[in-house]
C-alpha cells in the first residue's frame, strides 16, 4: 500500500472476512479489502468469480453469511443516497413503458421518500445527470428505444442522480465501442476529481491497468488488491483466471500461483 495515504482517517469501503452464497453454493469466501475515498477502483475477475454478488452484499441486497462491510466507516445497510448503483444491464427490464427521464428520476426516489412526488429540483438533478452522459436529447424516449450503449449510459445517469459519494457500477463498459468507452472513462475521472469514490466491476483488464488508481482482483477470494501495477502480476492474474487457463490445452498448470 502507498505509505503517504496511511494518514487517511477512514476508508470509503472496508470489507472484512466476508463470505456469501446462494443456498449451498458459495460465491464469496474470506473476502477482505479496502478502498480509499476519492479513488477510481476496478473490480476484476473471471465470470462467476462473485463480482456481482460482492456488489450486492455491499449494497445490502444480499446478506453476507459472515464478515462485515463498512461504507465510509458505517456497517449495515447503507442509508439512501450514500451508495449509487448501476446493475448489470441484463437484469433490467427494457420492455417496461418508462421514459429515459423516468428511469433517471428513479435514482431520486430513495431521497424523496414515501408519499411524495419528485420536485422540480429532482428533475433538474436528473436532467443534469443525463447531460453528463450526453443523453439530454433522449430524455423523453422510451428506455427500450435506446441502443445498448445508450441504455448503459442511462443506467449510469440514474446512479449519478442518486448523488452518492460511492458509486458501485456493474459492467458499465460491456458492449460499448471504443469511443463510448473512452467518454465513459473521462466521466469517471471527472467524478473522481469531485471526490467521488467509484468501484467498477469490469472484464476490461487493460483499462483498469492503465487508467484506474486501485484494483481488486477477485475469484471467490481476493487474490490481490492495491495499485493496478502491483495487482496485475502474472502470478496473481493466473491465480484469478485459472479456470480460463485450464481450458487452454498444453498450458503448464504449475504456473498457477497460490
Amino acid at each position, binding site marked *: 500500500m502507498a505509505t503517504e495515504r496511511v494518514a487517511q482517517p477512514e476508508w470509503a469501503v472496508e470489507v472484512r472476512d466476508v463470505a456469501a452464497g*446462494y*443456498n449451498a453454493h458459495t460465491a464469496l469466501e474470506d473476502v477482505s479489502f479496502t478502498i480509499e475515498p476519492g479513488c477510481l477502483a476496478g473490480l476484476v475477475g473471471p465470470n462467476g468469480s462473485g463480482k456481482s454478488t460482492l456488489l*450486492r452484499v455491499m*449494497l*445490502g*441486497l444480499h446478506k453476507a453469511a459472515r464478515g462485515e462491510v463498512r461504507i465510509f466507516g458505517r456497517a449495515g*445497510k447503507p*442509508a*439512501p443516497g450514500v*451508495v449509487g*448503483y448501476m*446493475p448489470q444491464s441484463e*437484469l*433490467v*427490464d427494457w420492455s*417496461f*413503458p*418508462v*421514459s429515459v427521464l*423516468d*428511469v433517471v428520476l*428513479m*435514482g431520486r*426516489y*430513495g431521497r*424523496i421518500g*414515501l*408519499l*411524495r*412526488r*419528485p420536485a422540480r429540483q429532482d428533475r433538474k438533478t436528473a436532467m443534469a445527470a443525463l447531460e453528463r452522459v450526453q443523453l439530454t436529447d433522449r430524455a423523453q424516449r*422510451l428506455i427500450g428505444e435506446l441502443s445498448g450503449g445508450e441504455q448503459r449510459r442511462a443506467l449510469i445517469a*440514474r446512479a449519478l442522480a*442518486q448523488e452518492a459519494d460511492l458509486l458501485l457500477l456493474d459492467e458499465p463498459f460491456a458492449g460499448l465501442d471504443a469511443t463510448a468507452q473512452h467518454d465513459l472513462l473521462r466521466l469517471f475521472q471527472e467524478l473522481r476529481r469531485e471526490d467521488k469514490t467509484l468501484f467498477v466491476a469490469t472484464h476490461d483488464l487493460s483499462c483498469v491497468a492503465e487508467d484506474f488508481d486501485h484494483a481488486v482482483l477477485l475469484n471467490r477470494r481476493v487474490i490481490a488488491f492495491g495499485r493496478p501495477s502491483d495487482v496485475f502480476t502474472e502470478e496473481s492474474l493466473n491465480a484469478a483466471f485459472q479456470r480460463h487457463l485450464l481450458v487452454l490445452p498444453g498450458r503448464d498448470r504449475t504456473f498457477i500461483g497460490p
Partner: protein
Amino acid sequence: MSEIVDFLTDPWTFEFMRRALIAAVVVSVVAAVIGSFVILKGMAFVGDALPHASFGGVAVAFALGENLYIGGGIAALITALLIGFISRRGLIRYDTAIGILFVAAFALGVAIVQKQQNYTTDLFSFVFGNVLAVDWNDVWLTVAIGLVVLVVIALFYKELLFTSYDPAMASASGLPVDAIQYGLLALLALTTVIALQTVGIVLVVALLITPAATAQLLTRSLSTMMLAGAFLGALSSLVGLYVAWHANVSASASIVLTATGLFALAFLLAPSRGLVWQVGGRGR
C-alpha cells in the same frame, strides 16, 4: 331514429341492469389499473391463481353460513401471502409456488362444496359470475373496495413503479420492496374479490389482463396505460352489457369477449405497433 334510442336506453330502464352497469364498470376500471402492474411484472399466472384460490374461502364461508365475499377475500389474501413467502425462500420458483398453492385452495373448496347438499346455483355464480344478480349492498361494497384500491395505488404510484421496474435498485435505494410487493398482492386479492361476482372465478384474469394489454399497445407510459386500460375496461363492460341484453347471452362472457375484440383491433391497428403497419412497413 327512436329505434336506435330505444336500443340504447332500453336496458337501463331496469334497476338490475343499472346496478350491473355500475358494478361492472367499477370492477373493470380497478382491474385494468392493477392489471397494468400484473402484465408488466409478468404476473398473469397470479392473476388467474388468486380468483381460483378464493373459491376455497367461498366454500368455507358457505359451509359456515358467513359472507361469501369475505371468505373468498381471506382465502385470496392468505394464498397471496403464502406465494410470496414460499417463493422468497428461494428453493422453488415463483410460478411453481403459485401452481402448488392455488390448486390446493381450489381443491379444498371442491371438497367442502361436495359435502354441502344445497350448493348448486349460489356457488355456481361464483364460478361463472352473475353481475345481473348483484344487489345494492354488493354495488356499494364494490365501489368502496374499488376506491380503496385506486387510492392506495395513487398514493404509492412512485414506489409501485420503481419496485415493479427494478426491484434490486429500489431495494438498494432504501425502499421497503418486500412490503410493497406484498401490498400489491393484497390489492390484487381485493380486486379479485369484487371481480368474482361480475365475471366469476374463471374470467377474472381476463379483466385484469386484456384491457391493460390493449392499453399497452396504445400508450407509452405506465400512467397513460392505466388510464387507457381503465377506459377500455369500462367500455367493454358497457358494450358487453348491451350485447348480453339484446342477444340474451351471459353478461360475463359478453364483457370478456368485447375486451378481447378491442385487443384484437389494437393488435392489428395500433399506430406504428399494429400488425398491419408492421407488415406494410416491411415492404418499404
